[in-house]
Each structure stands twice: as structure tokens, then as C-alpha cells.
């Protein structure tokens, strides 16, 4: 776990050099590009929609409270042709209850939301980022 956080931090430094526009075509003022957060939980919703693909996951925090986190990615067509992902994504990629790990830049206001940099499925397959 610690290794992954460290790696995620390094990744965030790497993408920081190219800053905005790597994934998003909307800008990202809502998110803190200098910080990286990792959460793991179970998928509650997966919206393969324009302009940004959204993933929601139920994450249990240290106090045992379940919080629904959201994560935004780029557009479905860019993910479907692996333009910005390590595999070709599709609309049936996740089902509710699937294990998932989300790594990304957190919302500046503390909302449980990430601008995603990495997505890892329950088998440990890196679906985006991490290269």
C-alpha cells in the first residue's frame, strides 16, 4: 500500500509537468493537481458518457463509515480507443459491486471526488495510468 501511494505521488509529479489537458478537456480548477489520493472500494455506478466518463465507488473509511467517491475521466471515445488508457474501455466494463481502486487528484473543497490518474480493477489490472 505504501509503495503504491509513493508511486502514485511520483506519477502525480510526472503528470504535473504536462499539467492540464492530459485527461480532461474541460480544465480542472476544481481539483488539486499537486495532491494525489488513493481509495479502494466497490463500484456503485459506472457512467460511460460524454464528455467525461464517471465512476462511483462505495469506500469504507477508517471509522467504518461508507462514503461514495466519484471519479472523472476523459471522454468515452478516447478511452474506447485507448488514446489515454492502457486498455480499450467499453460501456460494460464495470458492474455494481466490482472491486476497484481509484487514484487521482482530490477536489479542493474536500468533496469525495477525484480527477482520476489511475484506475485498477479487482484483479490488479491497471486500466488507466501507471505507465
Amino acid at each position: 500500500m505504501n509503495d503504491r501511494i509513493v508511486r502514485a505521488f511520483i506519477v502525480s509529479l510526472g503528470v504535473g509537468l504536462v499539467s492540464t489537458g492530459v485527461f480532461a478537456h474541460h480544465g480542472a480548477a476544481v481539483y488539486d493537481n499537486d495532491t494525489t489520493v488513493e481509495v479502494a472500494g466497490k463500484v456503485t455506478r459506472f457512467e460511460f458518457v460524454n464528455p467525461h466518463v464517471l465512476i462511483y465507488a462505495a469506500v469504507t473509511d477508517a471509522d467504518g463509515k461508507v462514503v461514495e467517491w466519484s471519479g472523472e475521466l476523459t471522454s468515452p471515445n478516447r478511452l474506447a480507443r485507448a488514446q489515454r488508457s492502457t486498455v480499450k474501455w467499453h460501456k460494460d466494463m464495470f458492474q455494481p459491486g466490482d472491486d476497484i481502486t481509484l487514484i487521482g487528484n482530490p477536489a479542493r473543497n474536500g468533496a469525495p471526488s477525484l480527477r482520476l490518474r489511475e484506475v485498477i480493477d479487482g484483479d490488479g489490472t491497471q486500466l488507466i495510468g501507471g505507465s
Partner: protein
Amino acid sequence: MSNRIVSVSTALGAMFLSPVLLAQSVGQGADLSGVWTNDRSGGGWQGHAFTEELPPMTEWARERFEASKPTFGPRMVPVQETNDPVYECFPPGTPRVYLHPFPMEIVQTPGRVAMLFEYDHLLRQIYTDGREHRTDLAPMWMGDSTGHWEGDTLVVETVNFNDKTWVDRRGVPHSDQMRVIERIRLLEDGRLRIDVTVEDPIAFTEPWNGQRTYRRVDWDIEEFICMDNVNFESFEQEVLDYDGGSE
């Protein structure tokens, strides 16, 4: 039946072949056709501007620039606060459309080079049949483009813009006097280079240049409709409305 098949296939063959033959016969300089995607490896500014430094703006432009609220660059704001016309789904204009991170397809026919942009399915037509610019049309978002070949380089002149778009994604304005010159050519390594010169005596103190490089891909141009942005705006609003998790 077989005669009909032969005649149909002959007709189809003529439909598909004739543009190629005609293109050769009218001496179009190079075959730019294909699906192209931005090929950039430099700094972050390349995602939202043609140049790292701001263009040389006049007082007229500086005033408008300072009133702009872009979602990219050092002055970026959340989508909810922007006054970027693109978020109202107006076309990004020329040359700004090149800054949106979606591929475009070039379709080349005799007398015309068409650019089909995945972004909002915008179509840009560059007439290469020797015509003059139209004088009967109102100012346009994407402008009126004519082109000619200088060797293997397609030289495009675009005029008759309205003044409602920004020239990049960081809020630099332009006037309805903007004139955009593009020199489009294939590089030796097969990539596509577009050199852009922007002239606008009202907005800029002197012409300035930028460039984009594209690489050829085997993708299809798919659907990306701007009005779907409402999905993202409601998502962002949910995030911004976060109240600390109180129940």
C-alpha cells in the same frame, strides 16, 4: 442480373475512383487524407494555446482578455464560473478547434479539402478551386476558407470571422478583422504539420505564429456532442456543492 451487377460496380468504381484521378489531374500537391490526432509532447500550454507566451495584444484585446474567465491556463476557473463561449456549445472557431483534444479527418476531393472534426462534428471546408472569398455572407464562427497548393504545401487563408470566439483556450480574444493563414504539409516522417499565422490589426500589435503537429491514426471519427457537456456541469456542481459530508 450479372450485367446489372457489372454496371453497378462500374458506377461505384467511377464514384470512388474519379476523385482520385481528378485530384491527380488537377495537380493537388499532396495527399493529406486520413484521420489525424494531435501529436504533442511538450509543456502543458500546448493543450490550450499555440504559444507559451501570450500573443502581442493591443489595449482592445488586453481589456477583453482580462475579462475572460477561461478553464485553462494560469487564470483557470471551474466550468461553472467560465465565460468561455465553447461551454455554451458555440463552435471554438479557427484555429482554436485544433486545441481541442479530439481527432479530425481530412477528406480531399477535387476543388475542396474537408476537415471533419470529432469535436462536436464540426465541418470545415477549404475550397481549392480558385474561388475568391464570399462577400455575401455574415461573419462566421469558423470563417471562410480558401486554399491553394504551393508545391506539396496547402496554403489556406481564412477570413470573415465573427468576434465571439477566443483564439485559444486561455481567453485570448480576436476581432472580426482576424485573418488566419495556415500552411499544411506532410513531414518526412509522415506526420502532418500545420503552421498557423494569425493577423488581426484590432487585437494584435503584430502577426504571430503557432504550430500543431498531428500523427496519423487508424481510428474512426466518432461522436462527441457538445450539448452532452451538461452531464459534466451537473457533476461538477455536485462536487462544488459538497457540504462536508454532514447528514
